[in-house]
């Protein structure tokens, strides 16, 4: 970056960009200046005074404006009379900083002694004890004793629920306001605040219900003391007792990097996940995760999990051995050659989906596999998705992000944080939806269209940009004036948004599926369902924004591996053709009946699942699968970053990983599959045979890069408790355009809504098979799809 400024920290020269504050500059040099209130992801406030340093600036000759030089031809330095806060003072050219001399050490000792006068010092019962910045900094910089009389300590409430999940210990709080600032600056849920003054200043929640935010758990990480604890983890273990395993969140398509804190209980000899924390990945989730990811892990140890294979005998599902079950499955799949159909959900790993596709292609000799639930446009995202090297955290001036028909916070919560931050850095957001979403707050243009007219709006924008060679004739009809009439969005707004897009250096089009149309009817994708993704792809291609980093399509997929499962099935040539009169139906990780759909008629049904779902109850054979925490695997997130997760806890009962079950079936069918010993082997084959996935071997996925800000390990400065990335940052695979350079536009006639069309709305906290297993998260879950007043109908 240009504008580097030279400063001397403890006599050592460091060059950092203009605007950097002293603590950051020092950190770049490996010098720890202790901080409490400062956090590299938040604006500095200078509240705790822990970061005091001695600062000297060059003396400037008033006449010439040049620095005065001393006898040795060195600039003369005027040392400040008072210490300055390193977290709020930006560096200046030629500045000298002392961080370790006697004056500074004395100040650090005094600040710590003062902070500790109102701290209860109950580390033995504190959840943060062992990974606590206050403990660490006191040991390193603090005084060994205090002049304060222990009996004068004030006693405040130690068990104050801020909300349904987060508890506050008012005594431990050191009033750094990190939690408040996180909620205000990062999450934009202004639900916390201070009340009272002086020594009795306390945190409280301002919302009803308390602490009403989807990101509340993050405050417990960045709190530099143990003042904030979660109902989920409170007192469950000391930090040093846990084994920390890198993993990937399975609750949405962002694919946040996680650290699972696990321990084997001596009581029942069972491994369990005690807590979930974010793992730093500056390209994906930075150091944040949403509450669903943090508290939605309990399904891995649910009593309701399937632990043995079940086979229907005399009309009842009864326990069976693996041998028996697999033999039966293979027999039924074999005999009825060609009359078999597969269903696979989009929560399973890439390895599972790949082997499933291969099993059908080579073992069952059919390509009839359906991706469940249906999503439209995965092929377009595969082709025109955001280019490799995309980092939402780097978007700023010159970038335009168009968000159509999706509620980012409800579908991919962490993208909301990142896109909002991008908007604050100067990126322009155009938010188009039939209803108001949180993203509207940060939009340069909010376009509120009538339900079902999103595709017309996109073409209206394209028309305003005045491009689109391949489909020029069709687009020509969608003039802003006409589109304004169809969609109800004022013409001026369409033109303004079009102008933004035309001027954009980088363009990302984010689309969701909040539209009223059915994506699939009778086993065929409908044009109505595909129209919007196609329109978005056309927009990206027509404006020349396909196949480049920070440009392209980004879909708000409903599940964590929608893209990966699609890619794996496509690699095996899987295609869905409707069929009835089936001899066998093989369903992996999907519950169509539970989702209110009907299954095609079949003589024999095989279900591979974690739980005895509605679909599993109807099956003839149920095979118990492993959850993500009990096995290795990879997922492909919405940005097409392939990320690896690791086995963290021991398998439950006899359950086995999906790919392993499929391998057993394959071997029973006579395939020579003995080389698939591990999921790593399967991934190696994927990397070798699927062009887009080249370079995604496990070893490559496990590579880590140095990241800023430094967190975890021995870092005291970062303050909060976050884990650095030791499991790999993953690999963002290339989009189709980057590989073959071919792009084309296609025309699908925009569907026209009827008065009956009702918006399909996605909500994060809907009940579901997995999240229902987390007792701690129950208060947040909602039954109703959306408040009736918001159920939107077509024109």
């Amino acid at each position, binding site marked *: 970056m240009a504008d580097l400024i030279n400063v001397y920290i403890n006599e050592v020269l460091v060059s950092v960009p203009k605007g950097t504050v002293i603590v950051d500059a020092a950190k770049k040099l490996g010098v720890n200046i202790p901080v409490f209130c400062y956090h590299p992801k938040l604006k500095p406030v200078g509240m705790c005074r822990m970061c005091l340093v001695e600062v000297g600036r060059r003396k400037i000759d008033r006449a010439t404006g040049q620095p005065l030089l001393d006898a040795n031809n060195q600039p003369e330095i005027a040392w400040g009379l008072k210490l300055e806060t390193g977290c709020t003072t930006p560096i200046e050219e030629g500045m000298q900083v002392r961080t370790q001399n006697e004056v500074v050490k004395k100040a650090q000792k005094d600040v710590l002694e003062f902070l500790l006068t109102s701290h209860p010092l109950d580390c*033995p*019962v504190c959840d943060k004890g062992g990974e606590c910045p206050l403990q660490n900094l006191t040991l390193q910089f603090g005084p060994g004793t205090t002049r304060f009389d222990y009996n004068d300590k004030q*006693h405040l409430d130690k068990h104050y629920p801020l909300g349904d999940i987060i508890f506050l210990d008012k005594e431990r709080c050191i009033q750094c306001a990190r939690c408040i600032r996180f909620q205000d600056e990062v999450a934009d849920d202004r639900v916390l605040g201070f009340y009272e003054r002086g020594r009795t200043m306390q945190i409280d929640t301002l919302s009803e219900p308390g602490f009403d935010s989807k990101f509340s758990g993050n405050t417990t990480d960045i709190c530099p003391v143990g003042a904030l604890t979660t109902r989920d983890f409170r007192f*469950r*273990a000391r930090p040093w007792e846990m084994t920390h395993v890198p993993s990937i969140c399975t609750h949405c398509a962002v694919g946040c990097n996680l650290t699972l804190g696990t321990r084997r209980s001596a*009581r029942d000899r069972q491994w369990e996940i005690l807590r979930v924390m974010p793992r730093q990945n500056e390209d994906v989730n930075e150091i944040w995760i949403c509450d669903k990811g943090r508290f939605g892990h309990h399904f891995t140890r649910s009593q309701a999990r399937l632990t043995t294979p079940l086979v229907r005998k005399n009309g009842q599902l009864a326990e069976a051995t693996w041998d028996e079950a697999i033999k039966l499955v293979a027999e039924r799949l074999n005999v009825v050659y060609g009359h078999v159909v597969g269903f696979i959900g989009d929560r399973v790993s890439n390895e599972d989906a790949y082997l499933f596709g291969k099993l059908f292609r080579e073992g069952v000799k059919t390509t009839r596999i359906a991706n469940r639930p249906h999503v439209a446009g995965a092929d377009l995202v595969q082709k025109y998705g955001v280019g490799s090297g995309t980092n939402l955290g780097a978007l700023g001036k010159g970038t335009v992000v168009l968000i159509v028909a999706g509620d980012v916070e409800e579908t991919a919560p962490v993208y909301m944080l990142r896109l909002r931050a991008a908007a604050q850095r100067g990126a322009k957001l155009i938010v188009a939806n039939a209803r108001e979403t949180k993203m509207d707050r940060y939009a340069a243009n909010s376009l509120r269209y009538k339900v079902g007219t999103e595709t017309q709006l996109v073409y209206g924008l394209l028309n305003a940009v005045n491009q689109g060679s391949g489909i020029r004739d069709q687009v020509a009809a969608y003039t802003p004036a006409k589109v304004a009439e169809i969609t109800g969005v004022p013409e001026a707004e369409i033109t303004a948004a079009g102008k933004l897009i035309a001027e954009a250096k980088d363009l990302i089009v984010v689309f969701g599926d909040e539209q009223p149309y059915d994506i699939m009817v009778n086993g065929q994708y409908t044009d109505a369902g595909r129209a919007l993704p196609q329109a978005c792809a056309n927009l990206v291609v027509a404006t020349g924004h396909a196949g480049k980093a920070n440009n392209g399509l980004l879909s708000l997929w409903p599940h964590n591996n929608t893209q990966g499962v699609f890619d794996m099935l496509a690699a095996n040539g899987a295609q869905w053709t409707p069929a009835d009169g089936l001899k066998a139906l093989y369903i992996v990780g999907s519950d169509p009946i539970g989702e209110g759909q009907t299954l095609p008629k079949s003589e024999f049904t095989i279900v591979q699942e974690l739980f005895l779902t509605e679909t599993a109850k109807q099956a003839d054979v149920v095979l118990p699968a492993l959850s993500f925490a009990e096995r290795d695997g990879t997922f492909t997130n919405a940005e097409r970053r392939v990320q690896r997760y690791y086995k963290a806890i021991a398998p439950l009962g006899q359950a086995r990983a999906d790919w392993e079950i499929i391998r057993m079936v394959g071997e029973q069918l006579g395939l020579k599959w003995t080389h698939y010993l591990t999921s790593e082997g399967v991934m190696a084959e994927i990397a070798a045979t699927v062009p887009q996935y080249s370079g995604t071997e496990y070893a490559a996925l496990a590579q880590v890069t140095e990241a800023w800000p430094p967190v975890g390990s021995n870092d005291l400065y970062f303050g909060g408790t976050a884990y650095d990335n030791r499991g790999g940052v993953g690999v963002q695979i290339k989009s189709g355009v980057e590989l073959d350079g071919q792009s084309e536009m296609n025309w699908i006639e925009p569907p026209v809504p009827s008065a009956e069309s009702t918006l399909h709305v996605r909500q994060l906290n809907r009940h579901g098979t997995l999240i229902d297993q987390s007792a701690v998260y129950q208060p947040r879950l909602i039954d109703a799809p959306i408040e009736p007043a918001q159920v939107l109908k077509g024109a």
Partner: protein
Amino acid sequence: MITEILKGMFITFREIFKPPVTIQYPEVKRPVRQRFRGRHELRRYADGLERCIGCALCAAACPADAIYVEASENTDEQRYSPGERYAKTYEINMLRCIFCGYCEDACPTDAIVLTDAYELSAFSRKDLIYTKDMLIVPPPAGKPGTPQKVEEGAYNRSILPEGLVSEP
């Protein structure tokens, strides 16, 4: 040579009249030293509450990894110890323990103490995992055991004043 034999016989003869050093264990037991370290016990406060707050510092200090603690949360309805936290599970594997007493040193509330008892044998290895029930001392005479139902807010500190002074 004969003198040497007589000398030796004399010593033997002399010892016959001394009291024996062997004792008839187990009927007779030797007193142990004041700082002897034997089987642990978990102490209580005078009002019957458990001292242990489930902080697991003993487990952290233990060089033999013999201790396993799982904590849980007190309520005023069901109070085991003062403050918010108590040990739901507390186990010591006596086969692993080397009786170094580090756990005792680590304990902030003087809950775990090594006693004089040294008769630690059993018929199975499993029986040598001492659970909390085996380790906790009975409540003082006339006091209830745990959990207790207590007055709301009466015990919001993790340590009672008597716990702040280390016992001799």
